[in-house]
Structure formats: structure tokens, C-alpha cells
């Protein structure tokens, strides 16, 4: 702020002062544009996923047929004995791990260690791709072996398949977009595109990635445990 502007704004007290601080001109708060935008987008996206999950709870209550026992449907057998939820556990583990590598990438980005940043983002993307791969496996097993379809399934309420494919599909789409986005950022990091512009972009991509992970935790809880 220019000196004159400061003089004109003799600080107010109490509540008014708080408001003045929060509404100060933008020099007071350095938030990169892209970061502010990503945060807003993520809040908006949160509303989308919340609506999906509320919809899920709602149809689960309104449907007249019994809800399938999810832990049995999602079981995988190794050597004969079915282990409930094992695939999902692995998927979750992979995704959480990717959040770790992402966080490290952000850190190395700010330290301007381009090689490490590049490889760590690549690792994150790889974990993401693995996750999507396992999801494809899960879907094909559900569709092929168990006969679950969006409009019906042999286990009970048709809504089970509908909502499952819709929500995990929507989440999978997010992960897929995230993988592409990460690869793009990684390439640009490597090519030195951000050398004099700064590495906020890694953090911004990271925000998105952590969000997608967080959403998965909720989907996991709502679909597999509930």
C-alpha cells in the first residue's frame, strides 16, 4: 500500500479492525492465483462428491430390496480362502502412498531440486495409474464374474450397482485426469519451464492430488465399510 493509502486507513478496532484486515488490498495476502483457484475448485468439487454420497445414502434407504452384503462381493480369494476387502485395502494403500510421494515432490520442488521433483511426481503418477488399473480389474470382475450391472445385480437392490459404478467411476475419472495433469507438470519441471517462474505449480497439483485421495477415503468408508 502506498503511504498515503495507509494514512487514510487509520486502523479500526475490534470487529471492524478484523474485517479491515481480512479485506485488505491484495498486497496484504500473497496467494498465487492458481492456488486460490485450485482451492475454490476443490471446495466446489467437494459439493459434487457430497451430493453423490448423500444421494447414495438416500437411495439406500428408499430402495425396497435388501442391500447386498458388500464385504462378500468385494472379497478376493487367494488359494481358496476369500479375504474380504483385500483389493480395496491394497488400492487404498497405494493411493495413500502416492500422497506421500506427492508431498515429497512439493518439498523438493521448493528446494528447486528438479531431478528429485520429477521422479517423485512420476512415482505419484505411477501409483495413481496402478490405482486406476486395479479399479479396472475390480470393475471387470464385478461385471464379468458377478454379473453386476448399473441397472441390476443378482445380490439385491439394483441401486447398489448404479451408485457404485457412478461414484467410483467419477472418482476414477478424477484420478485419471490427475495422472495426466501430473505427467504434464513433471515434464515441464524437467524441461525447466518453472525455473524462473517458481514451483508453486507442484504444490497446486499436489492440492488436487491430496483431495482426490481424501475423497477416496470417504468413498471407501461409505461403500465398503458401511
Amino acid at each position, binding site marked *: 500500500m502506498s503511504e498515503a493509502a495507509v494514512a487514510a486507513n487509520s486502523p479500526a478496532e475490534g470487529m471492524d479492525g478484523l474485517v479491515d484486515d481480512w479485506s485488505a*488490498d491484495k498486497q496484504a495476502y500473497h496467494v498465487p492465483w492458481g492456488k486460490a483457484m485450485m482451492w475454490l475448485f476443490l471446495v466446489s468439487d467437494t459439493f459434487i462428491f457430497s451430493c453423490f454420497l448423500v444421494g447414495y445414502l438416500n437411495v439406500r434407504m428408499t430402495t425396497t430390496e435388501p442391500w447386498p452384503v458388500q464385504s462378500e462381493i468385494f472379497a478376493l480369494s487367494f488359494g481358496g480362502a476369500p479375504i474380504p476387502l483385500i483389493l480395496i485395502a491394497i488400492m487404498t494403500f497405494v493411493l495413500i502412498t502416492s500422497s506421500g510421494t506427492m508431498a515429497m515432490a512439493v518439498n523438493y520442488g521448493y528446494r528447486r531440486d528438479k531431478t528429485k521433483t520429477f521422479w517423485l511426481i512420476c512415482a505419484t503418477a505411477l501409483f495413481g495409474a496402478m490405482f486406476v488399473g486395479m479399479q479396472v480389474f475390480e470393475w471387470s470382475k464385478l461385471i464379468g464374474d458377478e454379473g453386476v450391472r448399473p441397472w441390476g445385480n443378482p445380490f439385491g437392490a439394483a*441401486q447398489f450397482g448404479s451408485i457404485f459404478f457412478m461414484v467410483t467411476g467419477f472418482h476414477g475419472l478424477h484420478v485419471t485426469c490427475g495422472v495426466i495433469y501430473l505427467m504434464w507438470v513433471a515434464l515441464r519441471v524437467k524441461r525447466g519451464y518453472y525455473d524462473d517462474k517458481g514451483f508453486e505449480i507442484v504444490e497446486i497439483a499436489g492440492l488436487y492430488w491430496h483431495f482426490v485421495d481424501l475423497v477416496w477415503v470417504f468413498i471407501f468408508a461409505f461403500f465398503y465399510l458401511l
Partner: protein
Amino acid sequence: MAYVPLADQDKEMEMHHPHSWVEKYVWSQDHKVIAIQYGSIAVFTGIIGLTLSVLFRLQLGFPESVDFIDPNFYYQAVTMHGMIMVVYFLTALFLGGFGNYMIPLMCGARDMVFPFMNMLSVWTFLLSVIILMASFFVGGGPTGAGWTLYPPQTAMEGTPGHDMGIVLMLISLAVFIVATTMGGLNYAVTVLQYRCRGLTMMRLPLTVWGIFVATILALFAFPALLVAAIMMLFDTLLGTSFFMPAVIEAGAPLDHNGGSPLLFQHLFWFFGHPEVYIVALPAFGLVSDVLSTHARKNIFGYRMMVWAIIAIGGLSFIVWAHHMYVSGMHPYFGFFFATTTLIIAVPTALKVYNWVLTLWEGDIRLNAPMYFAIGFIFTFIHGGLTGLFLGNVVIDLPLSDTYFVIAHFHMVMGVSPILVLFAAIYHWYPLMSGRMFHEGLAKAHFWLTFLGAYAIYLPMHYLGFLGVPRRYYQIGATDFIPASAQDLNASITIAAIFVAVAQLLFFVNIIWSLKYGKKAEKNPWGSASLEWQTPDLPPKHGNWGDELPTVYRWAYDYSVPGAHEDFIPQNTPETVEPTVDEEHFDPDQDASKADI
């Protein structure tokens, strides 16, 4: 997402400099051009919406006088009219049109933060309009389920457009939401992070506040509509049953079971109610600035106006079920939603008082924009009062789904925002075009529109009391509706045709003045806010020439005692003119302070 420069390095913002006519006016990244594109597309769809309304009014006023208006066409026309007007016309025009034009100029910015994404937004919007219009040409025509698209109605054989029509409608809505999200993120971040030096949030003109909060509402409310649209698409295309209960149609059960139509209503209105404020808040903002400028007085209670906008925005998310009183709900919920609904009336009324008090003892210049702005105060009070009736469960039950509701929301969401649109277009016309419009024509346009609107909607309240239901192709003979209701309907239709034709005055004026209007002098209304202080009129690409402005005061320094003129532009340093910043300011009392 492209590379992001730091906010404080915005002088280095990468501007896209156009090299050819096409880059300048078609694939433009200039927020002003994009605003005009957004606005033109919105107005074009609006004209279609208006034409549809004249057609179905013909049926209501003079039943079966027009050959091609059969029940199917009637339902399709009302449905498309509603959706077009609410979403593709008003929302797009306020956010995409005025948001784009005003935010960077009023914030002292060169453009939106991400001009490329802004450009994508307008083209995506055009795509959504094309998809919507395509539904007129597919087999079965557009959907006729009413603009609220309630299932299972949408999917029943008897509903026109139950196959392709509804699918295109839903896809178009989804595409529209993508467009609004891209635009909205841009508007919000520009307001937050691209204000020029000295421009604190509490110095922003109310226009920016209104559009800003409306944008936030859009970002948080449209997701519910998106989810509803996706689920309904699944129901229609994949045969799922999210919203479809077991239904028997023409003796045979449909292939659905166990879904929840109420879920759709909740999702729809969780979007739908904030949506009415997505339209109303920018209108509130724009009209505040028009009133203040032409009354040569600061807006009364600026801070309270800001808080009221924020409060309305917040509350609008917890009132949605007042649209569902007749759908049935636990009385406690009815109580809750009635209470929150009535609480929203408090900040709304506060705004109305402040507008009136802004006029109080003002040095009012009755220019054409001011006519529309004052007209808005009338129509808005009117519509707001009927809202209070409908907000109470017991009063709403008999009135719901009658013409009373139609009258309510057309006064409050139809006529009022449109009057503001006209006020705003006339007010900022010199800025956008560099020319003045024809004052007499504009005033004629006002009187025809304003009085015509009353001739249309006032009788509808009465029809509603009589119990005339909405969404009926024809009333026919009933025991409880007197035959004279039909005469009223006929008169409404005649008024509607008048008003529709009167809009020609507006278009003629705007287009004629582009070429033959008087050249506008700089800042013709003597406005204090920043958008009029650009070096060029109309502003060039990049808005501010070589240097970004610095702001020293709020946007409402009108009639400040001791100042050289009766307004002080926001970028006038206090060493040149006295400052009277932010607090309620009464020239009589503050005279001593202003003598500095």
C-alpha cells in the same frame, strides 16, 4: 492449467496480444469482448425464451386459437421458457456478461486472472446453448416436464420429449455448469487476488460484491444440479432407478423400482434456491451503483449492504425445502425451513431500506437508467412481499402451484432483475460503446415495460387466489373458478404481447446508437467508481494503458463538501481531494471533517 504468476507480479501478467481480426473479436481473450460475446448469446437465447412465452400465452388467453399449439407444444414451450430464462439468459448475462465486463475494470485489473480459460468458458457456454437448441429438432422435441424437471414426470411416455429431449436438456445443463465453473473460478480469484493497490474489499463497488458472492453461490450450488443431471441421465440412458420409484403407466409397470423422486427435488432445489440469488445478488449490486450515481449520493450504509449480500448468500443454502412444502415433510422440517426463509427477508429488506434511503434528499438525476433502477425498487418490494406469504407453510399449501407463485417469482426474479439489466445496460452503454443512447426512446421503453409488466403480473396474483393452477394447458369449466378468469387471462396475454413488442425499442435504440448516437464524453454520469477512469473510452485491451491505477477511497464519494466537483473518482489521492471513506457519511454532519 497454465503457469501461474504471483499476484504481486501482475505487471508481468502474460497478455495475449491479438494479431488479426479473428483473434481480436472471435477467439478473443479480452474480458470485454468475452463479456459482449457472453451477453449476446444470452440475449439471443432470451429472445427465444420470450417468443416461447408469447406463444403459450396465446394459448392461455385465447385457447386453441393457434393451430400448432397442442398440449405437447404448450408444455414444451413453458419448460424451455423457464429453463432458458433462469439459466441461459439471466445467469449467463449477469455472471458471464456483467461479471466479465465489470470485475476487471472495477478492480483496476488488466483482465481476468486466466484469460484463456475465460475464453474457453464462453465457447463452452455457446456449446451448451447449441445442445439445448438442438432439442427442438430431434424426434419428440424438447422435454415438456416443466423447468423443474421433476421425475418421474420426465420419464413418462405421456411427457413430450421424454427420450431425446430430456437427454439433451441434461447434457446441455452439464456443459453449462462446466462453462460457469471455468468462468466463476476466474471471477472469484480476480476479485480476491487481482485488485489494484489500495483497493481493499471494503472499497469495492457493490456491483463487484454482488457478482462475487453470486459467483461463489454458483460454484457451490451448481454441483447439486450437476449430480442430479448425471443421475437422471443414468436413469434415462442406462435404466437405473435413482429417482424412479415403481411406476405403473397405462396399466403396465415401468422398468424401474425403488428410486427416490424426493431426492431429485432436494438436489434440484439445493441448487434452485441459491440460483435465484445468483440472479438477484448481481442485480442488487448493479442497481446500488446506478442508484447512488444518479442520486449523487453515497450508497446508504455501505458496510451493511455488503454484510447483507453475504448473509443472503449464506442463508440461501438452507432454505431450499420451501419449494417442497407440498411434497410432504416432517412438520419440524417445515418449521425449520419456514423460519430460515423468513429470516432471509431481514437482510433483503435491509437492502431495500438502504436503497430508498440512498434516494432520500439525493440530488436525483432522472436519467433513463435511474428510471429503471427506481422501477426495480417497486417491483422488488412487490415480489418480496408475496415471498413472505409463500414462505409460511400454511399459506403456501393452498397457493402452491397456482398463478400466485408464478406472479411471485416473475415479479422478483423476472421483472426485477430485467429492469436492473436495462438500467445497467443503459448506464454502462457509453462505457462499452463510446456513444450515448437515445434518452427519449429509453424512457418510452421504460414506461411500456414497467406498466406492461404490472398489467401482466398483478392480475396473476388474483388468479392465484382464485385457485387457478399453473401448468395447465387449459382451465376449462370448473366449479370453483369463475368464467371471468378467462377474460383476465385474455387481458394478460394482450399485455404480454405489448411488452414483448416494446422490447424492440430497446434493440433499435442500442443498435442505432452504436452508429448514430452522440459521442459520449468521458465519464458522462460523473461516476466515482474506477471503471470510468480508464485512459480510453471505451477501454482498450489491457484497460489501463501503461500503469495500473491506485485507489485511495471507496466508490461512493458523491457530493463531498469541499470537493471541486460533486464526485471524486476512486483514484484521486487524498492530497488532492478530501477523503470520506467507508463510514456512513452525511454531508451535513460531516462538513467540519471535510474542511481539512
